[in-house]
């Protein structure tokens, strides 16, 4: 039998959170809408690269390279006319092409017969991520084409032959990688904001003064204000999971039970962090500012957009204390690899640790007296 005070609180929070039509929309529809939009839009894949190539009619190898590139689906022919079309550099400066291949004066095919064949590649690097991908794509196509066109018997075979097998996401589909990240972001935004706003609203309305004057213990007050948001946060899972599995074909290889457990631990951690944040905020403005200060770095260091491995070790510390990074790993492990997790999983323990710290600090900071 649940403590009546706690029950009253939980009932009240549910009424307040679900009464407003706009609030219901934000809680129930936004995750679905955002999931769909972000899942489609957020991608690290580079497509539709406008490619131009300058070569003479007899330069067969380079023509093959160009044609393969266009056929491959990543590149499209750059369109330009007049003076611009004659100058490789101008093409890029006028933003008519993203990459331009320029054959050497005597032709690339001709030069290949000699020791080293020069080939110029101009890439627009105003978008660094795209530029790196373009370079990698073209090098691969080039190597392939040269090998097949010349049947390079002359050069010795490379000493290492990689046998690359892409596991768990064989088509290197970015949705498979990004959708769990989007799930984490949406979950943290709705849950965290609700908790912080829920507590701060009481302070702002003056209802907090009445609550602490009532014979309610600090524990009842804290759990009464947080448990409902754990439930509301958990509701995101059955909302978003079908979208990711059915619309984006992200596999759910692991057990739903593990996923549920990991999500419960994560949502509780976020609620605890939200509670701690709320103890620093006196009004809604401070609450939105505080939420932003938490969520922005939390998303940055989660490894959703930028891989944690690319961060300098000193900064990786932030990733280690970022609940999002741990949940993201759990989510990808369970969904993509079908991993089983135990109570003592490293990332579960990390989440529990962060939650325990937040709760303890909140208890210490949660004032039952006014200043």
């Amino acid at each position: 039998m649940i403590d009546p005070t706690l029950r009253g609180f939980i009932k009240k929070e549910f009424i307040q959170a679900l009464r407003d039509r706009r609030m219901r929309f934000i809680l129930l529809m936004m995750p679905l809408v955002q999931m769909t939009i972000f899942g489609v839009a957020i991608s690290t894949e580079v497509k539709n690269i406008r490619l131009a190539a300058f070569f003479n009619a007899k330069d067969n190898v380079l023509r093959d390279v160009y044609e393969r590139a266009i056929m491959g689906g990543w590149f499209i022919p750059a369109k330009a006319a007049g003076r611009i079309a004659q100058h490789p550099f101008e093409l890029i400066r006028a933003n008519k092409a993203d990459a331009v291949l320029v054959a050497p004066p005597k032709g690339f095919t001709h030069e290949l017969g000699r020791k080293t064949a020069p080939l110029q590649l101009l890439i627009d690097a105003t978008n660094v991520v795209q530029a790196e991908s373009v370079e990698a794509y073209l090098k691969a196509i080039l190597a392939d084409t040269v090998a097949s066109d010349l049947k390079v018997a002359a050069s010795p075979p490379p000493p290492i032959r990689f046998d690359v097998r892409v596991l768990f996401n064989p088509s290197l589909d970015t949705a498979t990688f990004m959708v769990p990240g989007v799930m984490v972001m949406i979950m943290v935004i709705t849950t965290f904001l609700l908790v912080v706003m829920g507590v701060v609203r009481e302070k702002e309305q003056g209802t907090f003064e009445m609550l602490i004057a009532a014979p309610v213990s600090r524990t009842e007050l804290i759990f009464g204000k947080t448990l409902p948001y754990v439930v509301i946060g958990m509701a995101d899972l059955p909302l978003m999971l079908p979208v990711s599995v059915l619309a984006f074909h992200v596999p759910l290889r692991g057990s739903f039970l593990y996923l549920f457990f990991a999500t419960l631990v994560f949502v509780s951690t976020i609620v605890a962090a939200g509670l701690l944040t709320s103890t620093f905020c006196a009004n809604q403005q401070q609450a939105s500012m505080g939420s932003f200060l938490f969520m922005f770095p939390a998303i940055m260091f989660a490894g959703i957009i930028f891989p944690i491995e690319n961060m300098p070790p000193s900064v990786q510390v932030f990733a280690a204390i970022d609940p999002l990074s741990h949940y993201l790993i759990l989510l990808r492990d369970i969904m993509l690899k079908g991993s089983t997790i135990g109570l003592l999983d490293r990332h579960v323990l990390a989440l529990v640790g962060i939650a325990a710290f937040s709760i303890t600090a909140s208890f210490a900071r949660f004032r039952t007296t006014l200043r």
Partner: protein
Amino acid sequence: MAAGEPISIQVRDVHKEFRRFEALHGITLDFDPGLMHGIIGPEGSGKTTLLRILLGLMRPAQGRILYFEGGRPASFDVLRPHIAYMPQAQSLYPDLSIEEHLAFFRDLYGIQPRAYAEKRAELLSVSRLAPFVDRPAGQLSGGMYKKLGLMCALLRSPRVIVLDEPTTGVDPISRRELWELLYRLLDQGILVLVTTAYLDEAERCSKVHLIESGSVIASGEPRALLDDQKARSFDELFLRRAAGSASE
């Protein structure tokens, strides 16, 4: 009838400071049960601070608050469930209806269903709010809003009720209704403690304590106090004091 023995409170030499500004300096007062005590004073005189200290919401810098139950000393923690408070600032949930407020406070105070049903019916009929039970607090008039606040405070049958400016921003008719509600409590032996900046309301109290700039300037029955100060009304008394301090 409020169950349990009557509670009285003694304030002894209470001081409170806020960042070098002294809100209360050396307040000493006695609040006896079954009486309506009015704490009267202009805005910023320290009325709310005094109440918050009485209710354990703030700690005094110096001095003590003594609580008695049936004449014997008792600890605040023991008596706390029997002391109700209605803060001055809006303190209800604008999106919850009257019914939802009552249900929330029932759970908060752990009131049994039967006792609650009786109390709810009684409060709704006395306050005449029964037709509006489904209306959200944010859409109630000033007077109805205060009455709902009072109902929430009275739901647990307190032996002490502390009201901070219950009639501020309330129309004259609702003000009278609120006072009538408070008088009913006195018949039950409850200690009622009320602050007001409306000086004409001072005469409605059984005992008034005049506070100015954090000090008690006079204390006693309203009529006797006025005679003592040779004033016809509390308005006149405070105006005279204000003029006096300005000419000093």
